[in-house]
């Protein structure tokens, strides 16, 4: 884990520095003295290996330093402000996606190739196939302008969360539905399911207790990276719905060469990803009695 974090840090550091242009480049060049002072203030005049060392040390101390582009913000403050918003939006979207996706998957797996199966799976594929900025803007047109049910943008109240959460969750719901269906069909053919039916259990019982449990494994392992991605914020939806989350910083930092902020974002993402993957492993052991934690 530490080695991976370190390699991610190193790769991102050098990737950022290889790109021409720095955070303080302007259309008009600054006077040379000022430029030099700024560079000295932010250690940008040091040779590359010393910059690397300094930033590595700061990162280990969990202090990412001041942002180069957002005035009056340190990177830690940006993360502390944006992450809870992105994370709560992500969790809501994800719970919506899981509930909808698993239900749709189970319903269509019980009667494969029936009308409801085809309809649900087409809907799921559609959720995957429509780019989420198109989905979001159509949702705004329909539910804000035509039917004034929701506010168009902003953050704070429950009605603000609803539309972005649905748009964010839609592709995930689609994936989960399809994964659940495939796995359910696979598991339904196993012997232990036949045994369960043979000893006279009700269908609902068999599906929920025996089949679903086995079918959840790939869904859980898909959820690991998905949670990390969804909780660090979606740039598109945050921009369209004007949500002050972390996703927009993600891209802006990279485009504007905000070295410290970009590094902070990468690190948050990587840590999230690893936490989630570990949790997936633990969840495996909880769901599948054949797996034990080493």
């Amino acid at each position, binding site marked *: 884990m530490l080695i991976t974090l370190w390699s991610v840090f190193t790769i991102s550091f050098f990737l950022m520095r290889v790109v021409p242009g720095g955070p303080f480049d302007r259309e008009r060049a600054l006077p040379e003295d000022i430029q030099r002072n700024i560079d000295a203030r932010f250690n940008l005049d040091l040779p590359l290996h010393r910059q690397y060392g300094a930033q590595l040390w700061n990162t280990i101390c969990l202090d990412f330093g001041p942002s180069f582009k957002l005035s009056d913000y340190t990177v830690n403050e940006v993360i502390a402000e944006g992450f809870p918003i992105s994370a709560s939006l992500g969790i809501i979207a994800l719970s919506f996606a899981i509930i909808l996706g698993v239900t749709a998957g189970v319903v269509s797996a019980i009667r494969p190739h029936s009308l409801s199966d085809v309809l649900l799976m087409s809907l799921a594929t559609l959720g995957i196939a429509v*780019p989420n900025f198109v989905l979001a803007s159509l949702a705004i*047109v329909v539910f804000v302008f035509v039917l004034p049910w929701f506010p168009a943008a902003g953050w704070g109240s429950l009605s603000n969360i609803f539309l972005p959460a649905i748009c964010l969750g839609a592709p995930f719901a689609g994936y989960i539905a399809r994964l659940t269906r495939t796995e359910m069909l696979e598991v339904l053919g196993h012997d232990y399911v036949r045994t369960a039916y043979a000893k006279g259990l009700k269908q609902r019982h068999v599906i929920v207790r025996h089949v679903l449990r086995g079918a959840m494994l790939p869904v859980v392992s898909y959820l690991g990276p998905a949670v990390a991605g969804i909780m660090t914020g979606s740039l598109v939806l945050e921009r369209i719905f004007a949500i002050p989350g972390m996703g927009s910083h993600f891209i802006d930092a990279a485009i504007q060469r905000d070295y410290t902020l970009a590094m902070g974002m990468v690190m948050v993402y990587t840590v999230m990803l690893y936490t989630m993957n570990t949790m997936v492993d633990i969840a495996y052991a909880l769901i599948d009695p054949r797996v034990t934690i080493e």
Partner: protein
Amino acid sequence: MASEQQDREHYTDVLSRAGQLKGVSLGQDAFRRLRKNWSAMAALSVLTGIASLTCLTPLIPLQSPIEQHLQNRPESNGQPAQKGRQFQPPNLSPVQLQLEDELANFERKIQQLRTAKSQGSAAEQDLLQQHLREVYLHNDPIRGLWHKPNGLNRALTCARVTLFGDWCIPSICGTDHLGRDLLARLFWGARISLMVGVVAALVSLVIGVSYGATAGYLGGRVDNLMMRVVDVLYSIPFIFVVIFLVTILSEDSIKKELEFLGLDQIMIFYIVIGAIYWLTMARVVRGQVISLKQELFVEAARTIGASQTRIIFIHLVPNVLSVVIVYLTLTIPAVMLFEAFLSFLGLGVSPPDVSWGLLANEGVKMITPIKIYWWLVLFPGLALATTLFALNFLGDGLRDALDPKMKNR
């Protein structure tokens, strides 16, 4: 004599019947199963339709994808009156292209210059050659209406003018904020969007398969190291990598160098996306190769002295192709979505080139509470969704068809 004749007939009969019997290869079996799957076949035909329409775009009587109709222009010195056509909702009012006469004029001019050139002296010839080039570059009406047509596209456009004359399809999908016809832009955008999908997926295929197969076959420490690299690359959010690569590659000096190598920006863009998307492919292929390399046919190849490279690429890779094909049909939609996302950020294809993602993004930007130009969002979104929908269903069908558990069912 008669019995010999009978025997002969009998044997030829048996032989011909034996000749009719054919073993069913895995591929044939898979294709048979695919044909029975109506949703996959529908998806396949939709995709074939889209692909062939895309190839023949210049031949279809579309309006110009880049010509702008901004102001109302009264009739003046020979030019017919023109009406501004911004934000026209989908309609059927006829549109003329005014290309036929201009093209004829242009051809005549070129012809005149050519004959003058062939008759003139050497000094004159040079001058005329230059003039000819000027005329080609600036007076060509096709160049005015289409962005950088290459030879084939130009020839197809000329064929279209002779076929349909000035008639073109009315703006059945509406027009955008600069009065450009959305339908034509959709068709031209399809070329780039589909190319992104195909080229990037192929790049990811080449990298992913060779990387994964090598790691899986070599095993041990090498495998460990190679997969660790993949893990690390996985944990860098790849949007970052794309942004940095795009900025590096659009730097002037590097751009010139690449242009020298004959790569234009769109091509580089495709390759960058493909170079990002190979990670999952590498994992999938590695897993397959690990389970395959214990098989007897690998052992046999090794005993007759085949080299490692040969075993990997001649013996192992063809055996994982079915998985790879399935995964490929799922990578193409992912890549196309990613292209749309990059266009949303303004990092993708840059105007005057168009792609579906760019069109959808332009539509999204035009949404205001005052007036809703729904067609600008709906049609690009629909085009993108239809294609991705079909690709997903085809991928599902292929997966079912290539599943060895389903053999001869």
